[in-house]
C-alpha cells in the first residue's frame, strides 16, 4: 500500500504541476494558431516547438532531469546513460529523453538507474532507456515515446519532435 500511495502522490504532483501552467500555455498558443490558420494551409504534421531542456554539462550519468515537452503538461525525463546508444546525442552519444507517462494508462514512470529502465507502478510495464524505449514487458501497445534531441555547439540540448503519440493527447502538440 505504501508503494501505491507513493505512486498516487507522484502522479498528483506531476499532473498538478503541469496542469497549473497548461491553461495559460494552451490558451496563448490557440490564439496564435487560429490567427495563422487564416493565412496558411494546414501542415501535414504537427508543428513541434524547439525547446531547450538543459546543457550537456548539467547532466550526470543516471541522474535523470525532469523535463516537459512539447508543453508543460507532458512530463519527461532527460538522461545521460553513460553508454552510447542508438538515438543518443551529445559528445558521448548517450543522452536521451523520453515521455514519462506510461503509454498504457498514463501512470508516471519511475526511472531505475540499476538497469536503466522506466517502470510503471500502475501495471508493471517496463521500458528500456537504452533501446529507444522498447517495451521490455507490459501492456502498452507502443514503445515509449522518445523526444528527438538536437545539441547546439554550446552544449544546449533541445527537444524538437516526438516519435510516438504521448499518452492522454490525440495530438502531441495540443494547440494546433
Amino acid at each position, binding site marked *: *500500500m505504501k*508503494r501505491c500511495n507513493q505512486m498516487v502522490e507522484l*502522479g498528483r504532483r506531476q*499532473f498538478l504541476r503541469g*496542469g497549473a501552467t*497548461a491553461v495559460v500555455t*494552451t490558451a496563448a498558443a*490557440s490564439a496564435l494558431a487560429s490567427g495563422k490558420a487564416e493565412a496558411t494551409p494546414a501542415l501535414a*504534421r*504537427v508543428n*513541434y516547438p524547439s525547446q531547450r531542456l538543459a546543457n550537456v554539462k548539467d547532466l550526470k550519468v543516471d541522474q535523470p532531469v525532469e523535463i516537459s515537452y512539447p508543453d508543460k*503538461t*507532458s512530463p519527461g525525463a532527460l538522461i545521460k546513460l553513460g553508454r552510447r546508444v*542508438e538515438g543518443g546525442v551529445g559528445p558521448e552519444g548517450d543522452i536521451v529523453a523520453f515521455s514519462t*507517462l506510461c*503509454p498504457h*494508462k*498514463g501512470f508516471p514512470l*519511475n526511472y*531505475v*538507474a*540499476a*538497469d536503466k*529502465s522506466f*517502470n*510503471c*507502478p*500502475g*501495471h*508493471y*510495464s*517496463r521500458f*528500456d532507456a537504452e*533501446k*529507444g524505449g*522498447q*517495451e*521490455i*514487458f*507490459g*501492456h*502498452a*501497445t*507502443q*514503445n515509449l515515446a*522518445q523526444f528527438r534531441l538536437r545539441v547546439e555547439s554550446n552544449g544546449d540540448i533541445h527537444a524538437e*519532435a*516526438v*516519435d*510516438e*503519440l504521448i*499518452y*492522454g*493527447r*490525440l*495530438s*502531441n502538440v*495540443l*494547440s*494546433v
Partner: protein
Amino acid sequence: MTYKRNIDRLPIPPKGARVQNVVCHYCIVGCGYHAITWDVNKQGGPLPDQNYFGQDLTKQQAQETTAWFSPAMYNIVKQNGQDVHLVLMPDHDCEVNSGLGSIRGARQGENSYSEVTGTQSQRLTDPQVYRYSGMYPTSWDDALSLVAEVTRRVIEEQGEDGLIVSAFDHGGAGGGYENTWATGKIYFESMKIKNIRIHNRPAYNSEVHGTRDMGVGELNNCYEDAELADTIVAVGTNALETQTNYFLNHWVPNLRGTSLKKKQDQLAGEAHPPTRIVIIDPRRTTTVNACETESGKDRVLHLAIEPGTDLILFNALMTEIAAKGWVDKEFIQASTTDFDAMVAANKVTVAEAAQATGLSADQITKAAAWIAEPKEGKRRRTMFAYEKGLIWGNDNYRTNQALVNIALATGNIGRPGGGCVRMGGHQEGYVRPSDAHVGRPAAYVDQLLIGGKGGVHHIWACDHYKTTLNALEFKRIYKKRTDMVKAAMASVPYGDRVALVNAIMGAIRQGGLFSVDVDIVPSKIGEDAHVILPAATSGEMNLTSMNGERRMRLTERYMDPPGNSKPDCLIVAGLAQALEKSWRAAGKNDIADKFKGYDWKTEEDAFMDGYNKHAGGGQFVTYERLRVMGTNGFQEPAVDFKDGRIVGTKRLFADGKFGTKDGKAKFMPTQWRGLQAEGKQQEKDKFPFLINNGRANHVWQSVYLDQNNDFVMGRWPVPFIEMNPSDMQELGLKPGDLVEVYNDNGSTQAMANPTPTAKRKQTFMLFAYPTGPQGNVVSKGVNEFIIPNYKQTWGNIRKIADAPEVTRRLTFKSQEYTTG
C-alpha cells in the same frame, strides 16, 4: 532501431459517432470494447461539444482517461462498403476489464484489415484452388464444388472415416456459437465424422475430462471470486501475461487489499485477513513478481516444483489437510461421494512429496495451511485456478482430479471466494449436436494422418505445423501426402473436372491426401492445401461467445469482411449445399437429404438454429436481447428473461448439486505414477535441458495476425528461449544468438534470452511460433484420453548463429517490475 509509429496526431471521433458492442476476439477473459466508427471524410474537434467523448481535448488527459486511444486502437476500415474511421477501445463500464486493454487486445484496431492503411494485407480475400502449379483465386461455387466432389468420392470409397476434420471448438475469433454449431451440424448431424480433432490437440476430447467426470464443470465461479478469496491457488497459470485483465482487474485488488470493502459487504460475520497466494509453477513468472509487488513476499508462496510433479504435491496437500481435519465435513456429507476412499487411495506423506517435488517439507505444510487452515474458526475461502501448466502437463486426468479433490474437500466449489476453475485459453462458444459417436478415448487423428489414413482433410482455423505435438514428423508426412495430390492435379487440365477428380482420387488411392483449409490468413499448413477458403473473423460478422466466468456477449459486426470472405457458418452452409448437390447427382438421394437444413442467410440464422434451440437456456437468448445486455452480457446458463433483461447464473453448483447422476460430486483416486506419457522418462534421462514452453505477454496464440504486425515482430522476431546465463555461457551463447533445440522427435530454432531467474538446465520457449515451432521437439506421447504433454519435453541446445540484426536490436533486460 526500436519500432516507432511516428504518429503524432489521430483523428478525433465526432459527437454522434456510431458505437457498437465488441468483445475482444482473443483470449478467454473477453474484455469489453467499443467500436466507434464515423465517416472517413468527417472529424470531430477538440472542444467538448465537438467530440464523441464530450471532453476538452485541448488539455492533457489524466491517467486512466476515457478520452484517449492509442494509435494501435485506430484504423480505417470498410463498413457496408464505405470507408470509415474505426476506434476499438476498451469499455470502462465493462465489469470484466473496467477500461483496461492488454498489449494484445488493444491492438485489434491496428490488426484489422484495411485497404487504406494496408494493415493485415495478408488476409485471405477469395477462395483459392491449386492449378497450374500454384494457388489461384476462384469463385465460391468452383471451390466448393471441387471440395464436395472429392469429399463425396472419398466417402464412397473409404466411408466417413476417410474424411478427417480439424476444427476449432471455442469462442472468439475462429470460433463462436454460430460457427461451432455450423461445423458441428455438418460433421456430427449430416455426417457422423469420428476422425476429428481440435485446434491445439490431436483428438476430439476435453482438456479437462478429469473435473467433468467428478461432476464439477470447469468454469464454475465468477471473476469476482478472485476479489473475495482469502487464498488464491494458481497452478500452471501465468495470469499476468495470459489473462492479463482478469489478473489486473480482479486478482490485484485482492492482493492490494482494495477489495476489502467488497468482502465486508458481501461476506459479513467473518474475518478478512490479508490475502495469500500460492503459485505452483516450476518457473518464476512475471505473475510471481507482480504478486510479490502487491502483497509483499511474505504472502506469496511460490512452489517451484520439479516439472511434472503437481500430482504428488496435490495428494500430499490433500493428505495433510485431511489429517488436520481442515475439511468441510457438512459439505462432504451433503454433496459428495467417495471421500474416505479417495483419502485412503491418495495417501502420500509430506516427506515423499518433498522428495519428488524438490520442495521442502515446510513449504508443503505451509501451503496446506494457507489453503485450508480455518480463519478464526471459520472456513477459509480458497479459489483454485489452473491452466496449461496442468492441462498440457504430466498426467492431465489425474492431476486435474487431484486438485478438484482438494477444492471439494475444503468446501470451495459454488461459494463466494471459491471455485476450482481452469483459467482458459480461447473464449468458449460450444454448441453442437451430440459427439457421442466419437467415443472415448477419441481417435488419435495426427497418428492416423501420419499413418497414411484418410483421403480428404477439412481444416477449420487450425495450423498443425505450429500448434501440434510431434509437429516436424507430422509436417514431413503431411507434405509428402499432399504433394502426391498436387502432382496428380498438375497432370490434367484444371477445367476438365471429371479428369481432375479422377486424378486426385488416383493419388489418394496411392496414399495421397486432399487438403482443404479454411482460415482468415495464410497458415503454415495451408501452404500444402489444395483448396483455401477465406473466412471472416469476429467483428466482420456478428459473433457470440462466453468468457471464463461464462459471461456471454454479442460482438456486433462493425466492419466488412475482406473481399469475398464469409463467416465460417455460411461457408459450412455452402459446403453442405454443394455436398447435397454432389450426392444427388451421384444418385444417392437418401444421403443428399441429410444435407438439408442449411438455408441460413446470415450468421444470426445459424445462431437461432444452434444456440437458441440447443444450448441450455438458449431459448431466452437472441441477438436483439444480447445487444441490450451490452458488454456485460449475462452469465450462462440463462434461466429467465425478465424486465427486458436475460437472467443468468453467477456461480455454478451454488445449490450443492453437481453434474452427476445422483447430483453429488465424486471424489476420485488419483495415485501418483511418475511421468505418465510414453517415452517421457526416457527423454528426461537422455537429454540435459527441460524445454518448458508457453505464452508471452506480447502475443496472442500462434501470432496469426501478429506475424503481420511490426510492433510485435519488432519485439519477438524469433521465439525466445529463456536460459540461465550460466548455461548460455557454457554453450558460448550471447543474448539474441540463434540456437537449435533438438532431440529424437525433431528440431526447431529459437533465440537465446538470458534469464537469471531460470533454474539451471530448465529453459522456457515461446510456444506455437511460426518462426520456430516448439511442437517440433514434443514427443507423440499422450495420456489415456489422447491429451498431449507439451510441457515435459527435454532436448539439447546448440548454437546456430550469432545474433542477426533482428535480434541484436532487442532488449534482454529482466521482465520483472522493479522499484530499483
